């Protein structure tokens, strides 16, 4: 069997997840050490951009998925029809 690229190995992917989790935590903790520049009250909530970004993306993906149910068609949909 051909040797797998190191980046595709199961152990590497697990380590990448661990590094990612550390980075996520670090970006939130770093908030304690920088001067705040809030323009709105909501920004002063701890980790605002972290949970807001997460929720926003979850919302966008869910909305896209729902819209897809309505508007998705096979990619051959227009073939032949407008020739």
């Amino acid at each position, binding site marked *: 069997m051909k040797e797998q*690229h190191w*980046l*595709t190995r199961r152990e590497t992917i697990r380590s990448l997840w661990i590094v*990612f989790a550390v*980075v*996520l935590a670090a*970006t*939130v903790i*770093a*908030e304690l*050490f*920088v*001067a*705040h*520049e809030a*323009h*709105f009250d*909501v*920004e002063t909530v701890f*980790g*605002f*951009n*972290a*949970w*807001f*970004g*997460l929720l*926003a*993306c*979850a*919302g*966008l*993906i*869910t*909305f*896209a*998925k729902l*819209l*897809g149910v309505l*508007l*998705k*068609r*096979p*990619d051959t*949909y*227009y073939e032949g*029809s*407008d*020739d």
Partner: protein
Amino acid sequence: MTSLALHPGLILIAGAFLLLPLRGAARSVVALAVPVAALYLAWHVPDGAVASVRFLEFELTPLAGDKLSRLFATIFAIMAFGGALFALNQKHPLELAAALFYAGAAIGVTFAGDLITLFVFWELMAIGSTLVIWSAGTRPAYRASLRYMMIHLLGGVLLMAGIAGHVVDTGSITFQRLATDSVAHWLILAGFLLNAGAPPLSAWLPDAYPEASWSGTVFLSAFTTKAAVYVLLRGFPGTEILVYVGLFMVFYGIIYALLENDMRRILAYSIVNQVGFMVTGVGLGTEMALNGAASHAFTHIIYKALLLMSAGSVLLMTGKRKCTDLGGLFQSMPLTAWCGIIGALSISSFPLTSGFVSKSMISQGAADMHWLVVWLLLAVGSAGVFLHAGIKFPWFVFFQKDSGLRPPDPPSNMRLAMLFFSALCIGLGIYPDPLYAMLPYPVEFVPYTGAHVVTQLQLLFFSGLAFFVMLDFLRRTLTITLDVDWFYRTPGLWLIRSALQGLSLYGSQAELRLRQSVFEVWRLLERHHGPESKLARTWPTGSMALWVMILLLAYLLLYYL
């Protein structure tokens, strides 16, 4: 007239014609030298009207400069150079020439001091871009280019009607700030917005651009929409409706890109999304937001071209464009993957990339005005950009699964073009001062504060978390997503076909009736003049003498009367 000979846009257009018959090294030299000449000339266009030409009773100013024009002309010329470098090995003889023509027309728009010149270059842009799409030489590209042209001709009609109305109302053709206070100005705004990819007719962009060749789409991504941002910046700054139009575009782009399977169509939807940020900035209208919109147009052209170069390289080397067919390409195309990732980080406004120093100014504009909802929606939009372009594009093309494809990186000119644009993305991200110095207003904005960097990193990394956690929801399928173009590609087409059929039916009936009436006339003529008719019969000499006598008597009578 001598100053017109030094018009940077006309130099590019002349270069395009010069390029047509050339082949080999001469073609490469001209294709690269002409954009450099245009860039040099653009930097030397002074403030105010430089040249004027008389046309009918109007005094046209085809060359007028200020900081905003020079900023856009600069990026258009850089784009023409980078795109030409990338496209040097494009076999189709027309495409590169058409692309330079297109770039020249876009620069012509940026230096147009009056609305008539603006309109002429606007339409030349439509011609150039259509030719670029045609150069792909495929049937779907030809069909898409016809739809593209139809929409842009409609845009041209709106713009021309608006300009004519404006001239009747004011008697002036100068291109300056316009208020939305008359039908004419609304028509001009509609014409501009159509080219920006604004609703309801955004679908022309993801319909047509991905059908161009692997190099053609790179050029297409840059000029039309950003020329529209330029004219909005000059004509309609602070027009509130643009905030809402822009936000709609931001979310339209994200949602459709999330559902899309074609890698270049993902990036096409993402153009609408990014132009949405710029249009919102124009609508906010403060110096901060306008600087943000202008600088974002500048950085966007570079990173979007870079992303499409990366996608174009994949298309050229694999012949595939669907995410479902791709994956794992980082193993054999490392440079293309790295450049794609740099483009993806820039579009996501990652710190140390060009998008970070430009887009944050638009959000800052909303914050300065205390528009909480707009600011929040821009933040959702920023998170969504990382989702649909920042991770989705590189993930599905270069990582994801192993598609088994092992194509090498593309030829050296394409690699060089990608490296050049990658260097610009990172260079402007680390050292934005030259860009800030070119902006229309003085920049009082420090991008790299601790809070800016930390909040942006939080937003992006947690968006990334959402992507990987919800990856199952994002699994690619062999689908497209219906858009407004459905109306003119399905029921519209049916209506036109039925109307044509109706017309031909009516036509055949009308033809039958015509034949019948012609036949009637013929029969009448035959009855009187045919061989058996009264007038054709031979007459006896006696009746002839009688008729002569009657005529002579009548003559005598009349003579005496």
